[in-house]
């Protein structure tokens, strides 16, 4: 579904990504783990078309989307879940959910979203930034599901959440996977990552250092946590 080849990216003179290559197959959940500053978020921004200084190939369903603007990539089925949750202060919760057009074959209806997230229904007319951090994270995930996005690009969706909410995010991603949604996930929480993902890439100093499956991550958890500085 998503194939990245020789992707390099820069912030001014500083190179952040160095010839990264990876693949995410349809229906898979794949995580990107790495230290802070390893280039994980930049990689997601490159896939979404939000990063200017980049070179390399980004293919979606075999089609090179590297030259397409972000809005066209979103219309091809990419769902953006940014690390700051992307809530609009000037839009209500309902408006935050209905702002993006539907882009996929199986978009969630607003009723289904509110059934799954009663807290969002109760605050549907409030400004989205008035929600708690956990509710805003649910809103960010619900928004891309309502779009019907086929490939979710999730940047640390569990950061700063309570264990109960982390579990809810995990349940939601597993539910999405069941319905054929593909996920590329930036995650520092290895326990969470192995609970939802099929495979993992370790990003170090802008390069893919290792590709691992769940059993390998579990067996090397202590070593990896030490490397990640957690």
């Amino acid at each position, binding site marked *: 579904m998503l194939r990245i080849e020789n992707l390099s990216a820069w912030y001014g003179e500083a190179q952040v990504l160095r010839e990264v290559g990876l693949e995410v197959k349809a229906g898979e959940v794949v995580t990107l783990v790495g230290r802070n500053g390893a280039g994980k978020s930049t990689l997601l*921004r490159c896939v*979404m*078309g*939000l990063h200017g200084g980049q070179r390399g190939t980004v293919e979606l369903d075999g089609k090179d989307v590297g030259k397409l*603007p*972000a*809005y066209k990539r*979103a*219309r091809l089925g990419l769902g*953006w879940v*940014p690390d*700051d949750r*992307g809530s*609009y*202060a*000037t*839009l209500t919760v309902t*408006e935050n959910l*209905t*702002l*993006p*057009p539907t*882009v996929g074959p199986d978009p969630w209806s607003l009723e289904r979203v509110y059934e799954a997230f009663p807290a969002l229904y109760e605050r549907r007319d409030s400004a989205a930034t008035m929600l708690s951090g956990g509710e805003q994270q649910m809103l960010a995930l619900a*928004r891309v599901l309502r*779009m019907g996005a086929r490939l979710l690009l999730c940047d640390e969706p569990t950061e700063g959440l309570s264990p109960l909410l982390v579990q809810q995010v995990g349940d939601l991603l597993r539910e999405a996977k069941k319905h054929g949604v593909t996920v590329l996930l930036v995650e520092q929480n290895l326990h969470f990552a192995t609970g939802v993902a099929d495979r993992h890439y370790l990003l170090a100093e802008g390069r893919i250092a290792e590709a691992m499956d769940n059993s390998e991550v579990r067996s090397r958890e202590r070593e990896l946590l030490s490397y990640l500085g957690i």
Partner: protein
Amino acid sequence: MTGFLQNTFNGLVSGAFYALLALGLAVIFGMLRVVNFAHGAFYMLGAFGAYVLLTEAGVPFWAALVIMPLGLALLGMALERAFIHRLTRLDPLYNFLLTFGLTLILQDLVKLRYGVQSSPYETPSALSGSVDFGLFDFPTYRVFILGFAVAVCVGVWWALTRTRVGMVVRASTERPELTRAFGINVGRWVTPVFGFGIGLAGLAGVLAAPMRAVNPLMGADLIIVVFAVVVIGGLGSIFGSVAAGFGIGLVQAWGEAYLSAFPIVSQTIVFIVMAVVLLWRPAGLFGREEAPA
């Protein structure tokens, strides 16, 4: 009491001009991240256009009130397509140079043709005279300006909060990059929004013609205060620009009336308020710090 009410009314009328101009600046900055230093020049063109239409073609005020905002909106859209859209990825210094240069060109073109003296524009006959409010009389034209400006602001507010287009404009104004990532072609809305902002400046200019001296520099005098209004309201905040517009109109009128013994304070009160607001809330009263995509 009568004096206070009259000062308050005068403040609201000045505030109506600030609100219309600041509203246009706010939507333009919000969507393009361009501070339009030429906004005052378009306000001047609105007033001058109404004057030229009346004196050279006999076109009355009411027709000018429609023709000038629409004409200037079209001119603004053409300028946005030709020049302004090239600024978005450049250093803000280029934004200043281009829009300030545009101001000088527009002002000098008017000066070349009509000179620098002020030209009188007669108040439309239907709006001459005054309205009796019991405690005081107030010129009918000023009452009209206040009502008209409030109606325009409410209309814009309704369109922004109750329509799909308004929702897209609000989202694009608040976080243009993020909005692109949600499948919305923000660029498609940039030109009409720029034209709309310029049209509002033109509208304020036509409204100003019968009560302010129509001359090539009338926009330059006003725009400094309008920039203070936009900063106080929060750069890019649509609601903030309107609220601060009326608020600063009131502060200025009360300052001139009750602090006249301290001319240094009464003449600089707008900028004192701006400094205090920025110390208290660096992003303005209703502004927010820029968020990433």
